[in-house]
């Protein structure tokens, strides 16, 4: 038996981009393999849930978990890996803040099913068939995981030791985090592993004074290539977003969309962003301010909570239970 640490990587409701980012650390992946036995990484290599289940509690030294919790199977895996891992890292925006799939918290399970399987313009479903947790076919019974009403972050599901932001985290930041873990140079548990500054601090665009009379949507304006995008009236989230990416989007003429989550010390990205936006509007007239915001920012939820709705204090649109799993969902989880 090797005396190396044991490492697991897992994906839940995510896109696979975090995996691609891990692979993009290129030859450094060999350094990871020198430091750890990778015992479980479904995307990339060998591993079995059964063996994880058999492991003693805390038998894993480190688990990097990406993806949010959208269904009962993902919740089962989150609970299992929490129990088995000494250190559990919410890896990437989905596990950290819910990311884009968390915008589904503006809708219910029924609304999602209604459109995808029935109302969708290319659907052929006259009998209104929906996916079922259990289906009897002529040969036997087939099972699917239960799709929850609310997408939860990893931290809303189990205790998380560290958070690594980004959609996906840039390979360099992944390597920084692994180095921090290997050398034990870690912030207090519960912290985000990342920079203390904002995307603006690493953006090469020239900043002067921010006085906005009108916000413009990206399709309405060809911005100057040198000047700060926000000063040109484009809603750039760099001002509220944690540094770490190197301000990549503003450098190709696109505004920061906030994938690295809130900057240090801030919990609710949208609240921080709205405060920042309010402070750059060049008006003291409440009616004019209202007009500037409504005309230029027609979708405040999608603009300010693009990556963080599930994690935010709003969490989801108003519904009974406020996103807590219904009794049926709980039964599905415990029944696994």
């Amino acid at each position: 038996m090797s005396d190396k640490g044991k490492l697991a990587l897992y994906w839940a409701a995510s896109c696979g981009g975090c995996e691609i980012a891990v692979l993009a650390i290129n030859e450094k992946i060999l350094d990871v393999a020198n430091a750890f036995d990778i015992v479980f990484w479904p995307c990339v290599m060998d591993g079995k849930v059964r063996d994880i289940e058999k492991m003693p509690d805390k038998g894993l030294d480190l688990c990097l978990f990406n993806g949010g919790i959208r269904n009962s199977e993902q919740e089962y895996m989150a609970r299992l890996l929490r129990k088995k891992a000494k250190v559990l890292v919410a890896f990437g925006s989905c596990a950290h803040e819910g990311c884009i799939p968390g915008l589904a918290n503006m809708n219910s399970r029924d609304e999602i099913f209604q459109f995808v399987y029935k109302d969708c313009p290319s659907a052929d479903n006259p009998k209104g068939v929906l996916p079922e947790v259990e289906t009897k076919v002529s040969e036997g019974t087939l099972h699917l995981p239960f799709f929850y009403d609310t997408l939860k972050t990893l931290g809303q599901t189990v205790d998380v030791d560290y958070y690594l932001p980004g959609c996906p985290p840039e390979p360099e930041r992944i390597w920084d985090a692994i180095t921090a873990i290997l050398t034990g140079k870690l912030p207090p548990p519960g912290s985000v592993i990342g920079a203390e500054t904002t995307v603006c601090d690493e953006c090469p665009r020239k900043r002067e004074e921010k006085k906005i009379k009108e916000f413009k949507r990206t399709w309405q304006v060809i911005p100057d290539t040198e000047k700060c995008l926000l000063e040109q009236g484009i809603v750039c989230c760099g001002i509220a977003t944690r540094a770490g990416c190197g301000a990549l989007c503003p450098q190709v003429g696109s505004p920061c969309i906030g994938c690295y989550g809130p900057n240090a010390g801030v919990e609710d990205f949208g609240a921080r962003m709205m405060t920042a936006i309010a402070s750059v509007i060049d008006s003291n007239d409440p009616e004019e301010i209202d007009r500037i915001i409504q005309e230029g920012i027609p979708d405040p939820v999608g603009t300010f909570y693009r990556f963080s709705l599930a994690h935010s204090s709003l969490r989801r649109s108003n519904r009974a239970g406020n996103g807590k799993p219904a009794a049926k969902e709980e039964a599905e989880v415990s029944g696994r």
Partner: protein
Amino acid sequence: MKRISIDPITRLEGHGKIDIFLTPEGEVANAYVQVPELRGFETFCVGRPAEDMPNLTNRICGVCPEAHHMAATKALDALFHVDPPPTAKKLRELFYSIFYATDHTTHFYALAGPDFVMGPDAPKEVRNILGIVGKVGMEIAGKVLKMRRDGHYLIKMIGGRPVHPNWGLPGGVSRGINEEQRAEIEKLGRDAVEFAKFSLKLFEDIVLKNPDYVKIVTGDIYLHKTYNMGTVDANNHVNFYDGKIRVVGPDGREHAKYDAKDYREYIAERTEPWSYLKFPYLKKIGWKGFVDGVDSGVYKATPLSRLNAADGMATPLAQTEYERMYDTLGGKPVNHTLATHWARLVELLYATERWVELATDPEITGKEFRVLPTETPTEGVGSVEAPRGTLTHHFWTDERGILTKVNLVVGTTNNNAPINMSVKRAAQSLIQKGKPVNEGLLNMVEMAFRAYDPCFGCATHTLPGRMPLEVTLRGPDGEVIDRLAQNMD
């Protein structure tokens, strides 16, 4: 009835699952490939500003975000009734060609290659990318790594980020390229053409010169006579970025050729209660179940389908390889699923040739890479060939460009029915009365769906090139009778 559950401990566990049912006599009664995941993009994108779609839909797939980014961007062109300037279209296609070359490389070397280079019966310990390196030499590892590193580097240079680019806009792109960048793109593109030629040579030496492999490729286990879909240009040549959708029958006859915006006249999507992923089929033929033939609306949208649906390739070297493939396999169309790997390499060569063509186009460094929309947005369809199938985005908005309805027909979804059929057929060919179920079954089943490079099985993008699979043989009450595993211990 006995059941074999294939619970791959890979992406397919979270995102795909196979159940094979056996009759009391021990023959395969049926097989189901289930996709147990849904995220609901079509619903939650409603209410968002349309221009966010290239960034929102990127997050459908982190393996092929470029495809969603591009389909969404083209849908925005249509939605805002704006025609991007030539430089913008060329930049987008250049970016897309680089992405294709990178993605096809990953699939061939990490995933498909081991079965052929090492052989389907080679010991599992060597049937992986490291085995390939061992057999063919370290030189090959260096070439593959360089191709992938160059690809990601250029995708970031042009589109802003290596994963989830932020670049496409209605009417163009957010930034162009300068001469220094162009020169570097051209240089790396010429290396990529050589890499693609090398890859085809490798395929010839190792697969085509081995009669056993040719027999597997052209055998009955992986034969499916279905319709084929792909995008073609004005000359009916394969195009990844733009053109008309063409569908040809299992007999090679053209069934339809249409603009992407008319997709609803030609395809419809069924729902089965046992999968979260829908099952598209050809509407004018009709759904006849999971069956082959000209009377069944089942179609495939894969590299092989694109070649079958086209009359040729638009670049010279790829055209030569295209002709060679059909000459070798007995003419068009080819309905052998495993030939998809060969078709993928022909496409790799085309992508790299197109990359160089566009990188040397005088307009590519033009300053007119964007025009602002002036008309009121209404409705728009955008379509590209994703590596895993024809990808369609359809948006409706109010007059402010706020989304009121979204429909997405995603690459792998096209192949949902054929993947189920291929797995069933492979299982039926292998699991027979009185014949023990062995490790070979696992690899044969795996090869059946691996040819499709399914996105829900991004396990298919594995480093070792081998998915750990476990087959559990259960009795009627669910008790475990036997367990077989590969790559498990």
